């Protein structure tokens, strides 16, 4: 069976599910960040598979590629800022990055 649009969409859906599972069950803040990276990668797979299988002209195919490129750049920036926040939390919250302990904003 030749891989078509559906195959890539199913792979992206499963990758997204793994990312969501990682985000909602992890207690380590870096682990949550790994899940976010998985989610952004699945979004990229979707963008590029629609660009490959559904674009009528070469120009619209390139539009999908540019969107994926911006998405990769934003993912890298998000990772840099989030890791800086994790490091600040580690320093200020008694050497822990457990998400269950980070409840200061609730009080």
């Amino acid at each position: 069976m030749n891989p078509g649009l559906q195959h890539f969409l199913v792979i992206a859906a499963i990758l997204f599910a793994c990312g969501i599972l990682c985000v909602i069950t992890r207690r380590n803040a870096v682990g949550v960040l790994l899940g976010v990276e998985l989610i952004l990668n699945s979004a990229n797979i979707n963008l590029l598979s629609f660009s490959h299988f559904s674009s009528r002209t070469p120009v619209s195919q390139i539009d999908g590629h540019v969107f994926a490129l911006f998405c990769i750049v934003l993912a890298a920036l998000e990772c840099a800022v989030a890791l800086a926040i994790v490091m600040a939390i580690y320093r200020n919250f008694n050497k822990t990055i457990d998400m269950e302990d980070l409840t200061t904003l609730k009080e």
Partner: protein
Amino acid sequence: MNTIVYNILFYILAVMVMGSAGYVAISKNIVRCAFALVFTFVGVAGLFVLLSADFIAATQLLIYVGGTLVLILFAVMLSSRISDIRISNLSVGVIPGFLITGCFTAILVYIALFGQWNTTDTIEFNPTTASIGNSLLTKWLLPFEVVSILILASLIGAVVIARQNEGKK
């Protein structure tokens, strides 16, 4: 591209991506999670090549595997002592998590398989780097410049946040 080679490559990459992503999601050891993420990213780059996105695949390898993942590994090594790794990566609410993501994935896969997608029959494999460069500097010039300002702002922000209390201590 030869169809049989394409199919074999696709299924190998699919198994690699989904297996390592599942390992990232359920493993107890955060260092092993980070290294499994390497295989996920490399497999996704391979899928990008199969989707005729050669430049994006190279960017994925350079930025994710070369940059982001090294950063994450640094954070893992800095924030948790190696002996505490198993303790520091506990999970919470696993059964509700599996239920929610299971239902959600079922819906997503149903939509992906039975949706009426608007696909074309003429699928071409062309080199994309030159056209990406052209469209980045003509059609997408404004978002390109805005992203460069965003990069500057977020890098300065990351530095400021990371060394917040250095001066006081």
